[in-house]
């Protein structure tokens, strides 16, 4: 018997109920498919990878179109992107059953496998993110003035940023495709929504993180912060729409883990505290000034980031739950 789910006799059974009764609605309630083994490290990877990619995009756009006010945004975005991408491969390797064979991920390139694409995409993006961060560091004089620093300063950072934005978007969104292309009912049922959802959440997380960083370090002016907040609002609204769409699209059986138990609470928490509440708090903050507004924005930012992490937890673990539910599997694969 595979690991990870309880035997029925450890749970309550009814007196007089027979083995036949237990196999009436499903095969003793046993899962019809195997869920993945993914735990916190993968959830964290999804979260950090999302921020990394999205902050790179934001940095690039800020650099390209933001004018001088947004210079700090571009700078912070490049650093944030690089810092959050560093743990990504480590988290992935840690999750492997045979970590010493991590390099087998780059043995092939398989276009039908989101994970294979993801491995290459992560590699490519890391190069861009690293290059951009180093370039930024060179500009900022953090790595001296000569030798490589000079070379770096000479790189066309806007072009690099433009080219790197492809992989950056990819890294923020492919994880949704990775989940979608499985037999896990909750994920595959929402195959068109997961990528956009992860992308919009990544964007709001990245923007929020940048906002908090810049606000805390007083690096950016109020215009810059306003623009960031505008973007955050749009991303959050997109996320809200996608979350509601996801719940509706899942239906009563496949979507059950989004309603029931702790995961249900968490899902409602993501919606309420992670998306709706920040929107409201931001709106409130816009009508206030000074410390109150700052506190409201800080709270909103923290809620967004927490919600972003929680969202990935909910999607991953509710997926596990739906994989353990044979009714969800059968609902997905029922005769048409």
């Amino acid at each position, binding site marked *: 018997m595979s690991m990870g789910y309880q035997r029925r006799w450890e749970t309550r059974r009814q007196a007089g109920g027979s083995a036949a009764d237990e196999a009436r609605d499903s095969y003793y309630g046993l899962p019809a498919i195997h869920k993945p083994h993914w735990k916190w490290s993968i959830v964290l990877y999804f979260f950090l990878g999302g921020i990394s990619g999205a902050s790179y995009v934001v940095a690039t756009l800020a650099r390209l179109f933001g004018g001088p006010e947004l210079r700090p945004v571009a700078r912070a975005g490049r650093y944030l992107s690089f810092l959050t991408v560093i743990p990504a491969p480590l988290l992935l390797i840690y999750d492997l059953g045979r970590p010493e064979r991590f390099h087998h991920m780059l043995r092939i390139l398989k*276009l039908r496998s989101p994970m294979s694409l993801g491995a290459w995409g992560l590699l490519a993006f890391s190069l861009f993110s690293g290059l951009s961060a180093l370039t930024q560091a060179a500009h900022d004089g953090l790595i001296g003035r000569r030798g490589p620093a000079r070379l770096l300063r000479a790189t066309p950072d806007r072009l690099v940023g433009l080219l790197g934005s492809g992989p950056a978007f990819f890294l923020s969104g492919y994880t949704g495709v990775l989940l979608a292309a499985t037999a896990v009912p909750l994920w595959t049922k929402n195959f068109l929504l997961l990528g956009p959802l992860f992308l919009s959440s990544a964007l709001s997380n990245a923007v929020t993180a940048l906002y908090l960083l810049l606000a805390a370090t007083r690096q950016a002016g109020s215009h810059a912060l306003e623009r960031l907040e505008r973007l955050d609002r749009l991303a959050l609204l997109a996320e809200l729409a996608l979350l509601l769409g996801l719940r509706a699209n899942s239906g009563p059986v496949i979507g059950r883990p989004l309603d029931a138990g702790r995961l249900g609470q968490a899902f409602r928490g993501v919606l309420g505290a992670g998306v709706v509440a920040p929107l409201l708090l931001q709106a409130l903050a816009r009508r206030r000034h000074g410390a109150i507004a700052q506190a409201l924005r800080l709270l909103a930012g923290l809620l967004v980031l927490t919600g972003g992490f929680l969202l990935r937890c909910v999607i991953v673990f509710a997926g596990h739950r739906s994989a353990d539910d044979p009714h969800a599997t059968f609902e997905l694969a029922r005769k048409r």
Partner: protein
Amino acid sequence: MGIKERLRTHVGRVPNPVSEATRQAHARIRGAEVTVSVCPYCAVGCSQLIYTKDGRIIDIEGNYESPINGGTLCPKGAATYGLLTSPLRETKVKYRAPYSDHWEERSLDWAMERIAQLVKQTRDVTYEETDEHGVPVNRTLGIGHLGGATLDNEENYLIKKLWTAGLGIVAVENQARI
């Protein structure tokens, strides 16, 4: 492998990169010695093939030639390899002295001699030459024997011969009774 071939097998929509180990894969019974045996479990009488390499059993399977099992086996028959190699298999003589609470390891020779002595002792004490009417019975009821239905015919023959004809042990019984 050329670079072109390598690209073809390693990059693409669904490439199919076969490893060296896969190319080399083969059945472990290739080139093994084969011995014909009979399943030791029930009485259906399935013929088995025991594959050995370097004096070790590496596999036991059904024998296609048999008109009874035609290569097939039941779960017990299919587990015969496990019967011979289970981690619980005992390969040492164990001895428990009277009133002792533990096993002791003893040599096979010691055990054989001790058993022979005990048989003689018990037999000498309990031997009946005649019954109460003076009819020769030449037997002992002091020793009994159980087992035989999982042993070979030749073994049963030797048991019956030694115990009953040689030592007068009459309470010789096997699982046919149960």
